C-alpha cells in the first residue's frame, strides 16, 4: 500500500471553484466564458486521471489541508472508491458542459453566467465529496453542494421554481442538519475521530441500539440518495433546466448521496460490524421497498423527466442494495452501478433535453412518432434505456450481473426476486417510449417525417455517452478494477 | 446611634416611599419623594456616612427633586385614574416584589449583626484604609482618600457616568444644532419681570455665597465631608437657582450650554488626563505618587494628596456643568428657551 502525499486531490476539487472567478468576470463574452469552463473541466479531468495510476497500483493520494479541531480535519484522500466516483463526475462534467452550451443557447436562457458559475461550484463540491478523507470533509462538501445547486434548480425563478426550490432545500438541508449532523456528532463523541478507515471506527464502542439508530439517521439523512420517504425533492427538482437535471440529478447530487452512504457503511460502520449485527438485511429491505415503489410510480408518469426521476430513485436504491448485501460481488455491483447508471441515465436526460430544445415537448404522450423526426436522439434513448434496464450489450448489464451474483453470494434470494422484477418494471416504463416514437402509423404520428435534430452541441454529447454505455459492456475498465479494489479494501478479503 | 431614632426615620421613609408612589398628583409625589430623600439623608448622617448624606442632600433631595418638578411641569401633572384595573400588572408586581423580598430576607439571617465591629466588612479591608490613609496619602477624610485614590478608578468612571447622563439627555431631548433662536413666550405667559422680585433679590444675595461655599466644599474635601461631587452639585444648583428665579435665558447668558458641555468634557479630561500623566511618567495609571517628579517641593505622599485635589476639581467641573445641562434641557424641553 503506497501512500502519496500530494495536493492533487484538493486541486482537483478547487480548480472549478477557482474557475468561477474568470467565469463571472467574462460574463459579457459567452465564448470566453465557456472556454474557461472547458479549461477548468480539462484540468480537473487531467488531475483526476493523473492520480489514477497510483490508485490502480493499490496506493492512495492523501492531503490534509487544515486541522480545524483535534480529530476534525479538512483532509482529502483519493482511494479506489473515491477515484471511481471522481472519474465519472469529471468526465461527465465536460460532456455536460458541451451539452449545456447547446441547451442554454438553444433556449436563450437568462442568467447564463450565474448558471455556469454555480455549475462549476457544484462540481467542486462533488469532487470534494469523492476525495473526502473523513466524514467532516464529506459533510462540508455535501452541504456546499446543496447550496450550490439551489440556484441551478430554481434557475427559472418563477412560481414553480420557487415551490420546487423550497421542497428541495427542505428535504436536503432538513435531513442533513437534522439527521446527519447529530449522527456525525454522536459518532465523534463516541470515537473522537471521523476518519474513514477500512474496518470502520464504530465497532466495539457502543450498543446495538445506538448503532441501529445511527445507521438509520445516516441512511435517511443523506436525502440526496433518494431513499423513500426522503425522495420527494427529486421529482420536484425536475423543473431545473435539463442539463442540470442530467448532471446533478442523474449524476452528481444523487450519486453524492449514495456515495456518501457507501462511504459511511464501509468507512464508519465497517462491513464486519454490520455483518455481525445483521443490519444488512434491514438495509436491503429499505432499499428494495424504494426500488419497487419507485418503479411502480414511474410507470404512471407522463412527463418524461418525471418518469426519469422516479427511475433514478429506483436505480439509486440498487446501489444502496449492493452495499447492503455486504458481499464482495454485491458491493462491486453497487459501485459499478454508480458508473453504469450514470452514463445510461445522463444519456436519457440529454435526450429529454434535446427533445425539448427541438420540439418543446415534455410529455411522453406527446412524443408519438418522434423517432422519425429525431432518429439519432431516439436511438441513443434506446441505448440508455437498455443500460438502465440491464440488457446487453450495455454497461448496465455488467453491474446488474454483479448485483445478482451478490444476492446469491449473500444468500438473499428475496433480493434476487426484487432485482429481477424491478428490471421488468424498468423495461415496462422505458420501452413504450421508444415504441411510440418509432412504431406508429403516419396518421398517428404527431410530427412531420422530416429529420430535424437538436443543435449539434446537444446531440454530440448524447451520442458520446450512449457510445460509452455500449463500450463499457465490452470493457468495463477502469471502473470494474477500481470497484473491486475498493471492495477488497473494505471487506478485507 | 440611637435605635429608636433610627427606626422612626426608617418608618417615616417607608411611609414617604409608599405615599410618593400612590399619590395621584405627580407634583405632590415629587415633593414627597424629596422628603423621602431627605429622610434617607438624615439616616445616613446618623449612621456616620456623612459624605453619602451630603451627596444625597445635594443630589437626591436637591437637584433630583428640581428635575422631577421640571419634568412634571412639562408633562401631565395628574396620574390618570384607571378605569380598567391593571390587575395582571399589579399581581405580577406583587408576586415579584414578594419573591424578591423573601429571597432577600432569607439572606439577612446569615448577616452579621448590624453595626457589629467584628463583621467581615469591618475587619477585612477597612482597617487598611483607616490606618493607612494618613501615612500614605496625608488626607484625613478617609472617604475622600478611598474615593479619589485607592478606588480612584471607580470615581473616574463615575464622573464619566455623569458626563454620559448629560450627553444622553442632550442627545435625546436634543438642543443645539437646531436651537430656536427666536423669542418664544413661555407657556405660562409670564415674563421675567413678573417673577417675584423678593425671590430675585434673595437669589442675587444667595448665589455668590452658594458658589463660594461650593468652592470651599471642593477644596476642603480632604479634611471635611465634601469634595468634587458635592461641591459640583452645589455649584450647579446655584446656576439652577438663577434659572428658576429669573429665567433660563438669564442663566444662559452666564453659562451657555455649549460652554457647559465644554466644561463637562474638560472636567473628565482633567481626571483622566492626570491618570494618563502618571502613566506617561512611568507609573501605573492614576498612581499620583509619581507626580512628585514634576510638582515642585513635594514628596510622593503629598503628591497623592495634590493629585486627589486635581481630580476633585475635574469632578466638580463635570458635575456642575452636567447638572446645568440636564436642568436646562429638562426645564425647556430641549429647546433652551426661557424654561419654566
Amino acid at each position: 500500500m503506497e501512500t502519496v502525499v500530494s495536493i492533487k486531490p484538493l486541486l482537483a476539487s478547487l480548480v472549478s471553484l477557482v474557475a468561477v472567478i474568470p467565469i463571472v468576470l467574462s460574463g459579457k463574452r459567452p465564448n470566453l466564458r465557456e472556454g474557461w469552463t472547458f479549461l477548468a473541466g480539462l484540468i480537473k479531468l487531467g488531475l483526476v486521471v493523473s492520480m489514477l495510476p497510483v490508485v490502480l497500483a493499490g496506493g492512495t493520494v492523501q492531503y490534509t489541508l487544515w486541522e480545524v479541531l483535534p480529530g476534525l480535519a479538512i483532509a482529502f484522500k483519493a482511494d479506489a472508491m473515491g477515484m471511481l466516483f471522481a472519474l465519472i463526475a469529471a468526465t461527465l462534467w465536460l460532456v455536460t458542459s458541451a451539452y449545456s452550451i447547446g441547451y442554454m443557447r438553444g433556449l436563450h436562457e437568462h442568467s447564463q453566467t450565474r448558471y455556469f458559475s454555480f455549475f462549476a461550484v457544484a462540481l467542486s463540491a462533488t469532487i470534494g465529496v469523492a476525495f473526502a478523507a473523513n466524514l467532516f470533509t464529506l459533510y462540508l462538501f455535501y452541504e456546499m453542494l446543496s447550496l450550490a445547486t439551489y440556484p441551478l434548480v430554481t434557475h427559472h425563478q418563477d412560481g414553480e421554481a420557487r415551490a420546487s426550490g423550497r421542497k428541495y432545500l427542505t428535504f436536503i438541508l432538513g435531513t442533513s442538519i437534522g439527521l446527519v449532523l447529530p449522527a456525525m456528532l454522536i459518532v465523534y463523541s463516541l470515537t473522537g475521530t471521523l476518519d474513514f478507515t477500512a474496518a470502520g471506527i464504530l465497532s466495539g464502542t457502543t450498543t446495538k441500539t445506538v448503532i441501529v439508530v445511527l445507521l438509520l439517521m445516516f441512511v435517511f439523512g443523506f436525502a440526496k440518495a433518494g431513499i423513500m420517504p426522503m425522495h420527494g425533492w427529486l421529482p420536484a427538482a425536475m423543473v431545473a433546466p435539463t442539463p442540470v437535471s442530467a448532471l446533478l440529478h442523474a449524476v452528481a447530487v444523487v450519486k453524492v448521496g449514495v456515495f456518501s452512504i457507501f462511504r459511511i457503511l464501509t468507512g464508519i460502520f465497517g462491513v464486519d460490524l454490520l455483518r455481525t449485527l445483521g443490519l444488512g438485511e434491514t438495509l436491503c429491505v429499505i432499499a428494495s421497498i424504494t426500488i419497487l415503489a419507485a418503479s411502480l410510480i414511474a410507470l404512471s408518469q407522463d412527463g418524461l423527466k418525471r418518469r426519469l426521476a422516479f427511475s433514478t430513485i429506483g436505480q439509486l436504491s440498487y446501489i444502496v442494495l449492493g452495499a447492503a448485501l455486504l458481499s464482495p460481488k454485491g458491493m462491486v455491483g453497487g459501485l459499478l452501478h454508480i458508473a453504469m447508471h450514470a452514463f445510461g441515465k445522463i444519456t436519457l436526460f440529454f435526450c429529454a433535453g434535446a427533445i425539448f430544445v427541438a420540439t418543446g415537448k415534455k410529455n411522453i404522450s406527446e412524443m408519438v412518432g418522434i423517432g422519425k423526426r429525431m432518429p439519432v436522439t431516439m436511438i441513443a434513448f434506446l441505448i440508455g434505456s437498455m443500460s438502465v434496464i440491464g440488457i446487453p450489450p450495455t454497461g448496465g448489464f455488467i453491474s446488474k450481473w454483479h448485483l445478482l451474483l451478490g444476492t446469491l453470494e449473500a444468500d438473499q434470494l428475496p433480493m434476487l426476486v426484487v432485482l429481477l422484477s424491478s428490471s421488468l418494471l424498468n423495461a415496462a416504463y422505458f420501452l413504450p417510449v421508444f415504441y411510440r416514437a418509432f412504431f406508429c402509423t403516419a396518421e398517428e404520428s404527431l410530427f412531420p417525417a422530416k429529420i430535424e435534430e437538436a443543435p449539434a452541441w446537444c446531440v454530440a454529447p448524447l451520442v458520446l455517452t450512449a457510445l460509452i454505455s455500449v463500450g463499457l459492456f465490452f470493457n468495463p475498465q477502469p471502473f470494474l478494477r477500481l470497484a473491486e479494489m475498493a471492495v477488497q479494501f473494505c471487506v478485507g478479503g | 446611634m440611637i435605635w429608636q431614632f433610627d427606626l422612626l426615620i426608617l418608618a417615616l421613609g417607608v411611609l414617604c416611599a409608599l405615599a410618593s408612589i400612590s399619590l395621584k398628583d405627580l407634583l405632590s409625589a415629587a415633593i414627597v419623594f424629596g422628603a423621602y430623600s431627605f429622610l434617607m439623608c438624615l439616616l445616613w448622617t446618623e449612621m456616620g456616612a456623612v459624605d453619602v448624606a451630603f451627596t444625597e442632600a445635594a443630589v437626591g433631595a436637591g437637584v433630583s427633586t428640581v428635575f422631577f418638578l421640571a419634568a412634571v411641569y412639562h408633562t401631565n401633572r395628574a396620574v390618570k385614574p384607571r378605569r380598567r384595573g391593571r390587575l395582571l400588572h399589579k399581581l405580577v408586581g406583587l408576586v415579584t416584589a414578594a419573591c424578591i423580598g423573601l429571597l432577600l430576607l432569607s439572606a439577612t439571617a446569615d448577616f452579621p449583626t448590624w453595626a457589629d465591629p467584628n463583621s467581615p466588612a469591618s475587619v477585612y479591608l477597612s482597617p487598611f484604609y483607616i490606618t493607612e490613609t494618613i501615612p500614605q496619602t496625608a488626607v484625613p477624610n478617609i472617604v475622600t482618600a478611598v474615593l479619589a485614590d485607592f478606588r480612584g478608578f471607580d470615581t473616574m468612571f463615575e464622573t464619566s457616568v455623569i458626563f454620559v447622563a448629560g450627553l444622553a439627555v442632550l442627545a435625546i431631548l436634543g438642543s443645539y444644532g437646531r436651537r430656536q433662536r427666536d423669542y418664544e413666550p413661555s407657556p405660562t405667559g409670564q415674563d421675567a419681570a413678573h417673577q417675584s422680585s423678593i425671590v430675585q433679590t434673595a437669589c442675587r444675595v444667595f448665589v455668590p455665597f452658594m458658589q463660594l461655599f461650593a468652592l470651599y466644599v471642593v477644596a476642603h474635601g480632604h479634611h471635611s465631608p465634601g469634595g468634587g461631587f458635592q461641591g459640583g452639585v452645589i455649584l450647579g444648583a446655584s446656576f439652577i437657582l438663577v434659572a428658576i428665579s429669573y429665567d433660563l435665558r438669564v442663566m444662559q447668558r452666564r453659562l451657555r450650554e455649549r460652554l457647559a458641555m465644554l466644561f463637562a468634557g474638560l472636567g473628565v479630561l482633567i481626571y483622566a488626563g492626570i491618570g494618563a500623566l502618571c502613566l506617561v511618567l512611568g507609573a501605573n495609571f492614576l498612581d499620583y505618587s509619581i507626580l512628585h517628579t514634576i510638582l515642585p517641593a513635594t514628596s510622593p505622599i503629598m503628591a497623592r494628596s495634590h493629585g486627589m485635589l486635581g481630580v476633585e476639581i475635574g469632578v466638580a467641573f463635570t458635575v456642575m456643568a452636567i447638572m446645568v445641562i440636564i436642568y436646562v434641557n429638562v426645564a425647556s424641553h430641549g429647546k433652551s428657551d426661557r424654561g419654566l
Partner: protein
Amino acid sequence: MEMLLAKYNYWIYVTLMMIGIYAMIAKCNLMKKIIGMSIFQTAIIVFYVSIGAKKGATIPIIAHGHGVAHEAVRVADYVNPLPHVLMLTAIVVGVGTLGVALAIAMSIHEKYGSLEEDEILERQE
C-alpha cells in the same frame, strides 16, 4: 427584640426595595415608574451604608489639627469608609439614570401626548 435590633435596617431596606419593584412593574404612569426606580436605588444605598456602620465608631474623618498630636489611628474609632465610597458612586449613577429616564419620558410625552403606558401602547398601533 434582640433580633429586631440586630437586623431591622436590613428589613427596612428589603421593604423599600419591594416598594420600588412593585412601582416599576405595576404602575402605569411613567413618572411613577421612575420614582419607583429611584426608591429601588436608594434601598440599595441603605443596605450598603448599613454594612458600613460600626458600634461605637465615629465618622470616617481622622481627628487631626494643629493642636492634636499625631497618635496611632485606632481602627475601632471610625466607621467603615468603603461602603460610603461605593454609595457615592451609586447616588451619582442614580441621578444619571434619573436624568436619562426623565428625558426619555418627556420625549415620549411630546410624541404621544401621554405618560400612561397603556395609552402610549395603544397610540403606537
